[in-house]
């Protein structure tokens, strides 16, 4: 099956600035793809070049098998939900929804019926006569999505659509967008800087940095086997702990330095003396009695939310530990830490690429 969207060897320059570097990305029909990365990583540029709002400097972009490099946005048949929503302020909700239909010359009655149908699925039926300025943030968001849905486009593009909403609404809209995607059988591309959004909503996550796709794959694959230190640190919350380490004599363990050298077993082979970075996720460390475990550390801060306890150690670099439920550890205590050898990720100290 040809992919619905395909970037091959795509580059984008703004003058001398290289914004997209040799992007290879193929998006299956019906999939939900998240582009995620820190600001300035090129994820929005990639989305905008998919929409045609930016031109690509070299490479090929195909939508449903057709080369789109020179095709203007209005002929690409993709719909976009903007971060600012970009609702037409001088039009009612209904006029906003039917704009694309009216532009195409759809008869009034037919456009109206389409608007009512879409509004019913997104819960906007009672708001069709209102103007955007009379709506709340969440309602505007729904109008922006409905405006995209009404067209049955080849792809839905989302540009950080939830970043203007408050935290509770964001979590709610996350599920709503995903449910809508499943119901419509749509192909969605979703840009976000929030890795939680990407992990929870998408079935394909693309992590970008400085115009380069660092890694792409299923969300949990990225979590389990990050290809480099950047992806390891970006995916997962709280972020992974990184400790400078050296391969020890037996080749199956590392000597990590957290103030005092400590030896920890690993599941991969590292040549003795090789400088590496050991990464371990806070949720994979468990607290044990001070005289047992793999490391002995002092506690500097304990934060409890009731369901979770966040422990920070007094080591250098400091370690973050997440315990489920409550903990009886308090600041100043000496504790032991234990973790499974296979939960230690090893990265080369120079290239920061994954080892093993």
């Amino acid at each position, binding site marked *: 099956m040809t992919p619905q969207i395909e970037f091959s060897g795509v580059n984008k320059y703004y003058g001398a600035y290289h914004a997209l570097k040799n992007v290879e990305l193929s998006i299956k029909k019906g999939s939900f793809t998240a582009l995620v990365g820190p600001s300035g990583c090129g994820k929005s540029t990639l989305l905008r070049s998919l*929409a*045609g*709002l930016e031109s690509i400097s070299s490479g090929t972009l195909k939508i449903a098998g057709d080369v789109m490099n020179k095709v*203007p*946005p*209005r002929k*690409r048949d*993709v*719909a*976009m939900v*903007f971060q*600012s929503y*970009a*609702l*037409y*302020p*001088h039009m009612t909700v209904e006029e906003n929804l039917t*704009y*694309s239909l009216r*532009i*195409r010359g759809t008869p009034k009655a037919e456009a109206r019926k389409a608007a009512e149908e879409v509004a019913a699925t997104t819960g906007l039926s009672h708001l069709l006569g209102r103007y*955007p*300025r009379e709506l709340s943030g969440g309602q505007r968001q729904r109008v922006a999505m409905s*405006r995209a849905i009404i*067209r049955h486009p080849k792809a839905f593009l989302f540009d950080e659509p939830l970043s203007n909403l408050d935290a509770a609404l964001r979590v709610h809209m996350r599920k709503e967008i995903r449910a809508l995607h499943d119901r419509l059988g749509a192909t969605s591309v979703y840009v976000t800087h929030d890795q939680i959004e990407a992990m929870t909503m998408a079935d394909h996550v693309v992590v970008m940095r400085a115009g380069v796709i660092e890694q792409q794959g299923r969300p949990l694959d990225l979590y389990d086997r990050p290809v480099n230190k950047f992806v390891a640190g970006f995916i997962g919350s709280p972020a992974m702990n990184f400790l400078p380490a050296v391969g020890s004599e037996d080749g199956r363990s590392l000597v990590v330095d957290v103030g005092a050298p400590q030896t920890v077993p690993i599941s991969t082979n590292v040549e003795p003396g090789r400088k590496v970075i050991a990464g371990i996720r806070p949720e994979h460390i468990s607290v044990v009695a001070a005289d047992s475990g793999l490391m002995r550390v002092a506690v500097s801060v304990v934060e409890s939310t009731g369901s979770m306890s966040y422990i920070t150690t007094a080591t250098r670099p400091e370690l973050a530990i997440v315990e489920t439920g409550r903990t009886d550890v308090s600041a100043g205590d000496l504790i032991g830490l234990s973790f499974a050898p296979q939960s230690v990720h090893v990265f080369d100290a120079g290239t920061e690429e994954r080892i093993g």
Partner: protein
Amino acid sequence: MKRVLSSITDGRGFDIALVALPLAFLLLLSGLPLLYNVLMSFQEVDMFSLGTLWRPFVGFENYRKLFEQPETLPILGNTAIFVTASIAGQFLIGFGLALFFWTNFPGASWLRGLFLVSWVMPGLVVGAIWNWILSGDFGVLNFLLRESGLISGNIFWRSDPNYSLWAVVIANVWLGTSFNMILLSVGLSAIPGDLYEAAELDGANAWQRFWTITLPMMRSSIGALIALGLIFTLQQFDLFAAITSGGPNNSSNVTQYWAWDMSFRQYDFAKGATISVIMIVFVMLASIVYVRSTRHEVRG
């Protein structure tokens, strides 16, 4: 006493003082002359009663007499033509230029600023320049029209009754276009760019985007500009004084010039005041439109 003092330096007294000062200024220098003018239009005024305030009251006699004069209706007609043609010309060319500069080619903002030169020039200077351009025997405009084959003989713009009003209209359009362009440019730049992106993705071509996004979003700017245009064109006096002096035979005379001519050349102060009062009514209507359109701004 202390409370009053402290209220003036910090409190409601200060607020009132801030409002009262400009209000007193306006009342003294604009309000009173305006009221005096209205009063005068209902009185019998001659050279000898000019210095007194209470003169014989004649009711609407001045208005009745004014409309009996044969030149009144043509002059009102001239004023309507002058206002309509000037606003239409200034607005259309100004909007065209604003859209042109909006494309933001290299040097656009610099060139746009340069256009303002025409607007900051004194009307009398503009009039003098246009006198040369419009000159019948050796004017540049006639030369261009003749060389391009549009006319066969020279047009005597300033002395031919068929063209004299249009001579002033052309100069006034030139004078006011840049102001229109600047205000419309501001209105254009206030439209969020992502609306155009959304419309583009919704399938609208450039022409459709102009009609469905640009024009409706500019409604308040356009309303304000037309109202201001009406006010400014009714104030245009210098060009008439410099180019045609209302002639020949009133063919280019308009109310604002006529009011001055009536008062200070024919010394018929009552009729001069009467013409002004008629103009005040129109300007007031335009002001209401202006205030209303700036209040109803559509912003997302």
